[in-house]
């Protein structure tokens, strides 16, 4: 299984994502620059955190027009796995690959600390190794993670089980304590917390590990190979 970690000018969690893939699932992984125009060899695309294009205008607003994003849209439409973390989540909402938007934190503060998330749906490619209701410790680091969508969209998210993670103690004022959502097809996930920063006890938590092993597991199931333990 091939992983791509996108790199925009201003990405700063790209190395963490790369290392997390190496250390959790040990699959081939490449850094892919924002100017790339072919992602066809990749099965999973990770859009890392950071401040793409300095977050000028709005977080993710300029990155979403980078050449590589047309390829991400293609990959998403083809059913490949796309995970946007933090700034990556912001890029995915700006690109319209996920509904809603991320506003300034209610507190106006940049919040950087561990958060406890509740796994709401474990029937996705990103969460199949978790239990529903499992409480996991994943850190956040953002100033604009306050998820918003209109009421019609919110109803759809609930109806289709697209709310994947909720905060147990909401750090940013997001609607319904939303920390992460997926698209209707379930192959595109966006979340504000950083699973790649929680893959080893040395980092304070290894609860993010299962997000990566879930992806590999989903891919193997899709490709009819033995699943990993």
């Amino acid at each position, binding site marked *: 299984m091939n992983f791509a970690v996108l790199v925009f000018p201003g990405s700063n969690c790209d190395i963490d994502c790369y290392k997390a893939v190496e250390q959790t699932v040990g699959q081939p992984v490449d850094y892919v620059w924002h100017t790339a125009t072919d992602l066809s060899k990749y099965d999973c695309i990770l859009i890392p955190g950071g401040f793409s294009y300095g977050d000028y*205008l*709005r977080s993710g*607003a*300029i990155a979403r*027009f980078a050449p590589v994003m047309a390829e991400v849209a293609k990959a998403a439409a083809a059913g490949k796995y796309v995970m946007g973390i933090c700034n990556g989540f912001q890029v995915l*909402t*700006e690109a319209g690959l996920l509904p*809603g*938007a991320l*506003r*300034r*934190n*209610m*507190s*106006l503060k940049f919040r950087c600390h561990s958060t406890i998330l509740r796994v709401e749906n474990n029937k996705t490619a990103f969460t199949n190794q978790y239990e529903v209701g499992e409480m996991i410790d994943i850190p956040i680091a953002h100033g604009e993670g*306050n998820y*918003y*969508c*209109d009421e019609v969209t919110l109803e759809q998210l609930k109806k289709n089980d697209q709310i994947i993670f909720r905060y147990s103690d909401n750090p940013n*004022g997001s609607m319904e304590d939303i920390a992460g959502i997926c698209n209707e097809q379930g192959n595109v996930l966006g979340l504000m917390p950083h699973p790649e920063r929680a893959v080893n006890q040395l980092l304070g938590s290894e609860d993010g590990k299962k997000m990566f092993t879930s992806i590999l597991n989903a891919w193997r199931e899709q490709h009819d190979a033995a699943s990993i333990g």
Partner: protein
Amino acid sequence: MFKATVYVTVKENVLDPQGVAVQGALHSMGFSEVSKVRIGKYMAFEIDTTDRVEAEERVRQMCEKLLANTVVEDYRFELEG
């Protein structure tokens, strides 16, 4: 040549935490008559065309595609020249 001025603000039905903070500050300073504070963005640029209708349409497209996120923001603009 037109001079375009674009204003982008958080939608009225969407909470604007900056607006709330500034309103709180104004109230605590004694400006208690203030309500509905919104913080926004001001953008100015020139457009190289002589056709006002075309200029309006182009600026509208810029706002829809990039300058505003219409999920949470409203925009309006003025053209001068």
